[in-house]
């Protein structure tokens, strides 16, 4: 393989790749840099480093209320999507029922459909069912839409699982219930953690569906959205930088979990929408 041509040095390609990285990272770098800029967002180069925007941010009650709301919605969505996603994955893996193919496609639909369609459909449903728009409807939207992510991830986990253990457990007289808790669930641990992290982050960031289901209390992205319409302030850079830092921390947790072995590949969910 030493002389094979594709691994020859290719300076042009390297430059291309570097430029793509610049393009991908430019906004992130700008965002972080200007969160420390006294004179606000814009102009070049940024002068006068300051932490004022962070100070202002920490004193900003509305933002932290929104953060709390987002955390509640995300945590509840993880519980809902994980529970139903696990059942759906088990059903797809082990049961046969009429409309199974349709069910599989339907569950995955929110992942590939533009958020506006799922969001508006759920809005019509809320009006139809007489539900008041609130964090509860946002949770309903996130939880339901993200069943897709849980199902994909857990189905992949089930497919990789060794069936012999479950068979042995059942043969040796354990009830299906005991087998589920003692064999199936522990075997899926890594997939469950990966799915939970992914659902949590996606829910924290979600805006297209929430946009139509939000009541009086804002989630963080919608609070930021509201502020953006009033004008640009480095406070938004500051909160974004913090979100970025938390996201990176979460990814590191994920990779730690994954590299401990057996975990499903992180790209699977993204690859197969």
């Amino acid at each position, binding site marked *: 393989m030493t002389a094979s041509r594709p691994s020859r040095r290719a300076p042009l390609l390297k430059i291309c790749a570097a430029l793509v990285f610049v393009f991908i990272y430019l906004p992130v770098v*700008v965002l972080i840099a200007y969160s420390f800029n006294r004179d606000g967002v814009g102009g070049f180069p940024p002068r006068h480093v300051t932490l004022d925007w962070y100070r202002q941010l920490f004193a900003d009650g509305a933002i932290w209320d929104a953060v709390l709301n987002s955390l509640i919605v995300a945590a509840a969505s993880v519980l809902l999507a994980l529970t139903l996603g696990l059942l759906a994955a088990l059903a797809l893996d082990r049961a046969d029922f009429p409309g199974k193919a349709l069910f599989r496609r339907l569950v995955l639909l929110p992942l590939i459909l533009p958020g506006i369609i799922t969001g508006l459909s759920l809005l019509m449903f809320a009006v139809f069912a007489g539900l008041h728009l609130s964090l509860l409807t946002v949770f309903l939207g996130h939880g339901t839409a993200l069943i897709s992510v849980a199902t994909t991830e857990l189905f992949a986990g089930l497919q990789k699982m060794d069936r012999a253990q479950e068979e042995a457990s059942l043969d040796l007289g354990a009830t299906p219930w005991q087998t589920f808790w003692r064999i199936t669930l522990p075997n899926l641990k890594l997939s469950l953690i990966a799915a939970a992290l992914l659902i949590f982050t996606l829910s924290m960031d979600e805006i297209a569906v929430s946009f139509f289901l939000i009541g009086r209390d804002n989630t963080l992205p919608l609070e930021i959205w509201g502020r953006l319409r009033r004008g640009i302030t480095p406070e938004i850079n500051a909160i974004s930088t913090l979100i970025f830092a938390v996201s990176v921390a979460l990814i590191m947790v994920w990779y730690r979990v994954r590299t401990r072995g057996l975990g499903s590949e992180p790209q699977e969910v993204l690859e197969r929408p």
Partner: protein
Amino acid sequence: MYSRAYKTMVSLPPLLWVGLFLLLPYALMFAHSFWVVRDGLLVHQWNLQNYHRLVTNPLYVQVLLRTMRIAASVTVLSLLLGYPLAYYLSFHAGARKELLYQLVIVPLWVSYLVRGYAWKTILGSDGVLNGFLQYLHLTQQPVGFLLYSPFAVIVMLTHIYTPFVFLPIYAALEHIPRPLIEASQDLGASPRATFLRVILPLSMPGLLAGATFAFVLSLGDFLAPLLVGGPSGTMIANIVQSLFGAAYDWPLGAAVSVCILLITIALLFLTERLEKRWSFK
């Protein structure tokens, strides 16, 4: 090996939930598109009026065409950026492969909204890019056309979807058996021929998956136009949004949504077939 009761236990809750909170809402969307609003009230009267209004109104057709153009540009640009990057990582990155791969993933976790906002601050007339250009004395006046234009929408969406296009292409490239490439070279094919006749066809399923994803999600995007698009960057989903909001014509909005949905499903169906064809070759 699993009892009937077990199967029912695991199937029933997700079936009911998905039926109630996903199938019913989508069905409601579909039903609305055949209803009308009269004197500010929704009338459950089945007809094709909305679809008729949709195809005869040049504004909607024009915006739909613009949306398709923008989505196509985003798709092509994301491929042009994502493919070389994936190719470089898969064949040339050597030991740094894993690190670089993770570096592509990281920005995926930065909120969509936040990245859009960042582009707004970069492209604005008193933004970072204009400040930079004036700092270098390349321009005296701020360049105005950068923000609030279809161009800005394309830049922002390309930025968002390049990693999504990269991922499946990279996975496809990684799955190409290396002996195939060596065989091609040993048998005297030029690097160009090896790429065009071995690597590219074998990476086609990944390329298609990425392209579909970028196109479909750009097609239904309404936030990028609101953030950076301005009036000339309005897209079809913005029309839906205004029909559901200020204009208060849910049935017409639903009809436009159904059109987006149909285009999406048709595309998914098409690429699925294409992917199958390529992967059997």
